[in-house]
C-alpha cells in the first residue's frame, strides 16, 4: 500500500492541453474521487497514474518512488475499467488468476488467492462461469477481484459504476467502500457523478479543462467552494454576482448580501456569492424570518416541483431564477405566482472571487 503524489503534471495532445500543471497528494489508504465533466482531464490524470500514458512534464510518485517513466505493467497498480474489460476467453477464476499467473506464481497458491478474492467480492461460487454468463454487477465484482488479487499499491477505478442501473449502483457503492476499508488500499476513483463522489470519498478533487479547481474533503468543498464552478458542479447553488463590499457583495440593484466565509477581497472588486438551495428560507412575508437570516430578497414563485420528501421552488427575482429546496414538514405549500420573501444567514453564504 502506498500514497500517490502527482506534482506539476502537464500533458498535451497536439494543441489540446489535457492536463495543465496538476498537483495532488493522495494519502496512503484514502479514498479519492476525481470529479469533473467530460473532457476535464480526470481520465487522462488516472491514465497517467496508471502508466498507460506519460506526462510531458511533472512528477508522479507511488509510495515515494518516482514512476512517471515506468510503464503500467511495472507499476503494481490495480485498475477497474468502465466496461469491466474481462477477458472473454477465460473463466471468472482464470480472469482473477491472470495477474498472479503472468507473475509466474505457483498454481496451488494462485488457486487459494483467487478463491479468497472471489469470496471477498461475494462471488465465491461463480469461479467456473464465463464473463458473458454474469450480470453487470457480477462482472463489476469480478473486475474488482481481478484488480485487487495481486495486492497492488494503489487501486484505480475509471467510472466503475457508470454502466450499472441506479439501484445496483447504490449497492455497489456500499460494497466498494466496504472492500476498500477491509483491505485499506489507496483508491482513486474517476466519476462525473457528484452524488457518487460525495457519498463515497474521503477527499474530492474537482477538475475542469485540465486544471485542478479545488481539492479537499466533500464537506469542505460543498460548504466552502472556492469558485462558481466548484459550487455549481458539486451540488446545486444559487449564484449572485456583484461588487465586493468587505463582508459580502452589492448586487447591481443596490441590495447587499453578507457572506461569513470566503477570501477577503478589495472593496469594489468583481465577486460572487453562492448559497445552497436548502439553506434558504422561503415565506409569504407575513411570517418574520429567523433572526440571524440577515440576507433577504423579495421574489415571486414561478414553479414548484414536488418530490415527496421535499419541494423545489423556482423563484423569479430581478431577471434571475433562484432555487429553494424546502423539506416536506407538512407546512402550507406555496402556490405558483405567489410573492415571497427569501432569507438566509450569512453563515450559509460563501464569497467567491470572480474567476
Amino acid at each position, binding site marked *: 500500500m502506498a500514497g500517490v503524489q502527482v506534482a506539476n503534471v502537464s500533458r498535451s495532445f497536439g494543441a489540446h492541453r489535457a492536463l495543465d500543471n496538476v498537483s495532488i497528494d493522495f494519502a496512503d489508504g484514502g479514498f479519492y474521487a476525481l470529479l469533473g465533466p467530460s473532457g476535464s482531464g480526470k481520465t487522462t490524470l488516472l491514465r497517467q497514474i496508471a502508466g498507460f500514458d506519460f506526462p510531458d512534464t511533472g512528477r508522479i510518485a507511488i509510495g515515494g518512488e518516482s514512476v512517471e517513466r515506468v510503464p503500467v*505493467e511495472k507499476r503494481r497498480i490495480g*485498475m477497474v475499467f468502465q466496461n469491466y474489460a474481462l477477458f472473454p476467453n477465460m473463466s471468472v477464476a482464470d480472469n482473477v488468476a491472470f495477474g498472479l499467473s503472468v507473475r509466474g506464481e505457483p498454481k496451488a497458491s494462485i488457486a487459494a488467492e483467487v478463491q479468497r478474492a472471489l469470496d471477498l467480492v461475494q462471488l465465491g461460487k461463480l469461479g467456473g462461469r464465463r464473463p458473458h454468463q454474469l450480470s453487470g454487477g457480477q462482472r463489476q465484482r469480478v473486475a474488482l477481484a481481478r484488480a485487487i488479487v495481486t495486492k497492488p499499491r494503489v487501486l484505480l477505478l475509471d467510472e466503475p459504476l457508470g454502466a450499472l442501473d441506479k439501484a445496483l449502483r447504490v449497492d455497489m457503492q456500499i460494497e466498494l467502500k466496504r472492500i476498500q476499508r477491509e483491505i485499506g488500499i489507496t483508491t482513486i476513483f474517476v466519476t462525473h457523478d457528484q452524488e457518487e463522489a460525495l457519498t463515497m470519498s474521503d477527499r474530492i478533487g474537482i477538475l475542469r479543462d485540465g486544471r485542478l479547481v479545488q481539492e479537499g474533503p466533500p464537506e469542505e468543498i460543498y460548504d466552502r467552494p472556492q469558485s462558481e464552478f466548484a459550487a455549481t458542479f458539486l451540488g446545486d447553488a444559487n449564484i449572485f454576482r456583484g461588487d465586493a463590499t468587505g463582508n459580502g457583495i452589492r448586487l447591481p440593484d443596490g441590495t447587499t448580501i453578507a457572506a461569513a466565509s470566503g477570501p477577503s477581497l478589495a472593496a469594489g472588486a468583481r465577486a460572487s456569492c453562492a448559497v445552497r438551495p436548502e439553506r434558504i428560507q422561503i415565506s409569504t412575508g407575513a411570517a418574520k424570518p429567523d433572526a440571524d437570516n440577515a440576507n433577504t430578497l423579495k421574489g415571486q414563485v414561478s414553479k414548484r416541483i414536488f418530490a415527496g420528501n421535499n419541494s423545489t421552488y423556482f423563484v423569479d427575482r430581478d431577471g434571475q431564477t433562484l432555487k429553494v429546496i424546502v423539506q416536506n414538514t407538512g407546512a402550507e405549500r406555496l402556490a405558483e405566482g405567489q410573492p415571497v420573501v427569501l432569507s438566509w444567514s450569512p453563515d450559509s453564504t460563501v464569497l467567491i472571487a470572480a474567476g
Partner: protein
Amino acid sequence: MATTRILEWLGRCYIVLLLGFLYLPIIIMALMSFNASPFYQLPLEWTTDWYASLWQNDQLIAATWNSIEIAVITTVIATVLGSAASLALYRCDFPGKKVLQALLFPPIAIPWLITGTAMLIFFFGIGIGRGLVAILLGHVALALPYVLVVVSARLQTFAPELEEAARSLGANQWQVTNRVTLPWIMPGVIAGGLFAFAVSFDQFVVSYFLSTPGQTTLPVEIYAAIRKGFTPEINAVSTIIIVVSMALMLLTARFFKFGGEK
C-alpha cells in the same frame, strides 16, 4: 396464410436451385470418375479403374504433392506474416501507415494474369527464375492480403481495454498478445489460413507462369493433361481433392464457429 406458404415453398425451391447450381457439375464429375466409358456414355458402368491408373500416373502424383507442399508452406508463412502485420497495423502508429494500409489491399483486385507476368519478369530479373521456389514466393504474396483482410476485420471487434487490463495486471507485451489478443483473433487467423490455403491450392494463372515442366503444381498439370487429351483420371484426382478439401472445411467450420462466438 396462403401467401406465407407460397413464399416458404418458393424459398425452398430457391435453396434447391442454388445448391444444384453449386454442386451438380461436381456431382456429375464425381460420378463420371466411376464410369467405365471414357466418353461419358450412359448408363453408368461402375469401375474404379481410373483411380487405379491414377495411382500409376507419377507426373500427376508428383504435381499433387507439389501443390499440397506449396499450399501448406504458403499457409503457414502467409498466416504468420499476415496476422503479425494486422496486429502491427492495429496497435502501432507510424509515419506512412495509411499509405501502407492502402497499398496492401489492391493486389486482391489486380488480375492474376498481370501479377503473374510481373512476377515472372521480376523473378528472372533477380535471378530466382522459375520453379517451385518462385511459385511458393508468388503464392505467399498472393495470399498475404487475404489473411490481412480477414484478421484485421476480426481485430476491429477487439476491445482495446482488454490489452490495457492485461498490462495493468503486470503482463508484458508477449503475455498480452499470447493470452489475450491471439485467443480473440484466432477464428480470424484460422479463416485467413484457409483462404491462404485455397488461394495457393487453387492457383493456376500465377503457377502456370512460374512453373517449369518438371516442377509444376496440380492445376497446371491438369491443364497440360487436358491439352494432351482428356482422361477420366482427371475426374478421379479432382474427386479426391474435392472430398478432402470439403472434409477439411467442414471440420474447421465445426471446431471454429466463425464469427458466431462472442
